């Protein structure tokens, strides 16, 4: 693998770096904020971010500068920034590291984003389980406020930015941006129908930008070093930059690895992750969190950028890469993920609510050697009736594990069903299993 410079994990990988304000400032922190406040017009800040080509790291990969530019300039009321720190996609754990090890990098990015879109108030919506990260962020906000980097009249510029940590209470769906807004408004976290989009009707129906933690952490660096600098890294012009990939599963060295997206899955898994944990070869991997379709060893040389992964039939999503060794049952793996989606479906849309329960039941009975001959067809039929038929992208996400394992490992399903046929021949009762 060629050498490259880390952007986001650079500070925290210095021995002893603990993410205090003093350390962050010593590493050049808050210079970007000082550089723009009162000196560079907000529209120019947005242009720089546009020029960088930075795309959202929360899953959808929407160009960040473009998103910011959708905030109406002439809006008379308040605007809001929400930092999405819900990080609940199974296989994803990069935001937690960013928050716990270098919180000021995120806060500086947020302050700059607020300045660019004209927001005075920003909320960090953090999943309730991340108590340690929330405490670290709260402490960092106080520190930054005392140093004049946040609060009223930042560094005498007249700009005010107040940042608050808002903890959720356990619900994956609150990572979906409109569900996040509902939850922040004190309601059940159910996604809203779009349009209207948050850019015009977001938090309290005011113009709002929702950005992922990692997205915002990139901002100070882009401001410091320029849009063109960032745009030249990775796979320009569509997928520039580095990304943090969360490596988990049957590898020797699981963990977070930042690398430019022109690297391949093989670089990530073999070079950085140290390869498989035992002599069992790789059987399957998920390239972008639980919502991304499974891929096979044939896809190891695919590049990590959004387009390449999409061309391979999956998605780069949240950057969670999960590796599975030979011997892992794909029906079992699909069921585990499906149980997650069943548990987390918010219940708003019928296809997702009912469909997830049916899929879990069918997968459970296939795995318990009670599958029926037409179960594979039924699964395909249910999946086909969920995708594209729900208010938010959760519906498309939950069918990914089932559809992709059916695509590549259909014989595993069929073998289990054949076993059931032999085992249960002559039985008249139809086994009914309850969803756990």
């Amino acid at each position, binding site marked *: 693998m060629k050498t490259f410079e880390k952007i986001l994990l650079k500070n925290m*990988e210095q021995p002893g770096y*603990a*993410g205090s304000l003093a350390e962050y400032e010593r590493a050049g922190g808050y210079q970007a904020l000082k550089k723009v406040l009162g000196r560079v017009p907000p529209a120019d800040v947005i242009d720089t971010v546009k020029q960088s080509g930075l795309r959202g790291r929360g899953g959808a990969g929407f160009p960040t500068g473009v998103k910011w530019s959708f905030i109406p300039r002439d809006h008379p009321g*308040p605007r809001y920034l929400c930092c999405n720190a819900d*990080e*609940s*996609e*199974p*296989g*994803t*754990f990069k*935001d*937690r*590291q960013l928050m*716990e*090890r270098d919180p000021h990098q995120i806060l500086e990015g947020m302050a700059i984003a607020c300045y660019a879109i004209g927001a005075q108030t920003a909320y960090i919506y953090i*999943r*309730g*389980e*991340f*108590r*340690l990260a929330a405490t*670290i962020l709260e402490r960092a906000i106080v520190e930054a406020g005392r140093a004049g980097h946040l609060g009223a009249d930042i560094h005498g510029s007249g700009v005010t930015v*107040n940042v*608050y940590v*808002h*903890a*959720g*209470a*356990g*619900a*994956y769906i609150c990572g979906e941006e409109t569900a996040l807004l509902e*939850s*922040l*408004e*004190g*309601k*059940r*976290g159910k996604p809203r129908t779009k349009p209207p989009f948050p850019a015009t009707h977001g938090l*309290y129906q005011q113009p709002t930008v929702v950005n992922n933690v990692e997205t915002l952490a990139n901002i100070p660096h882009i401001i410091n070093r320029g849009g063109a600098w960032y745009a030249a890294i990775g796979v320009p012009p569509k997928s520039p930059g580095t990304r943090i990939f*969360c*490596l*988990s*599963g*049957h590898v020797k*060295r*699981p*963990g*977070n690895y930042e690398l430019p997206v022109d690297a391949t899955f093989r670089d990530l898994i073999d070079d950085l992750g140290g390869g498989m944990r035992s002599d069992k070869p790789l059987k399957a991997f998920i390239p972008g969190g*639980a919502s991304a379709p499974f891929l096979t060893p044939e896809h190891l040389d695919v590049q990590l950028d959004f387009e390449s992964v999409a061309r391979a039939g999956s998605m780069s999503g949240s950057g*969670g890469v*999960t590796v*599975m060794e030979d011997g892992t049952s794909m029906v079992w*793996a699909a069921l*585990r993920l499906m*149980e*997650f989606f069943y*548990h*987390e479906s*918010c219940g708003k849309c019928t296809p997702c609510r009912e469909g997830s329960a049916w899929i879990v039941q069918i997968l459970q009975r296939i795995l318990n050697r009670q599958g029926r001959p037409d179960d594979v067809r039924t699964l395909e039929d249910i999946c086909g009736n969920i995708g594209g038929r729900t208010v938010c992208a959760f519906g498309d996400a939950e069918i990914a594990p089932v559809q992709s394992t059916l695509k590549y490992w259909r014989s595993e399903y069929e073998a289990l069903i054949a076993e059931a046929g032999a085992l249960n021949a002559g039985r008249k009762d139809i086994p009914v299993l309850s969803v756990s």
Partner: protein
Amino acid sequence: MRPVSGGVAGGMVFDKHRDFIAELLTRYPVKRSAILPLLNLAQREEGCVSQAAMREIADLLDLTPPQVFETATFYTMLSLKPRGTFHVQVCRSLMCALVGADDLLAWLRAHLEPGADGATADGRFTISTVECLGSCATGPMMQINDDYYEQLTRDKVGRIVNDLKQTGDCALKSGPFMMPERK
């Protein structure tokens, strides 16, 4: 601000948090936004979200108790029923399951022998399974109350349970994010 009182319980749950609540309400232009922070606080105070707490929150935020109930029942971390002193939440999602979460859960259950509701007879432990806690590279893992415990083995879990029984605390809990060891 209105005095922190009212509801049937006469403001008992939040009385000692008056200053925090006053500050909390300044963070949002719409009071209802303070529901989750207050529900989380109530659970921290009482171990669960009581009817009295929900009434008090309604009172504080100019809502009806059913509105608070409606929100409270959406979120899995909030419990309307009391739980054990130590709420042991074992992650069962795929990434942890790939590295042995099921084995650990089975061991914990065999060792602590919880009842059907997940609670041990002495009320000290409640065992639940949870979905991914954002710690998949250091699995199998579990959260006990606020603390994460990662890279678990049977031995380690045994020590954690013992420590908690004996001292109410355990030094094996995780600090800030573990980096992967580099070679």
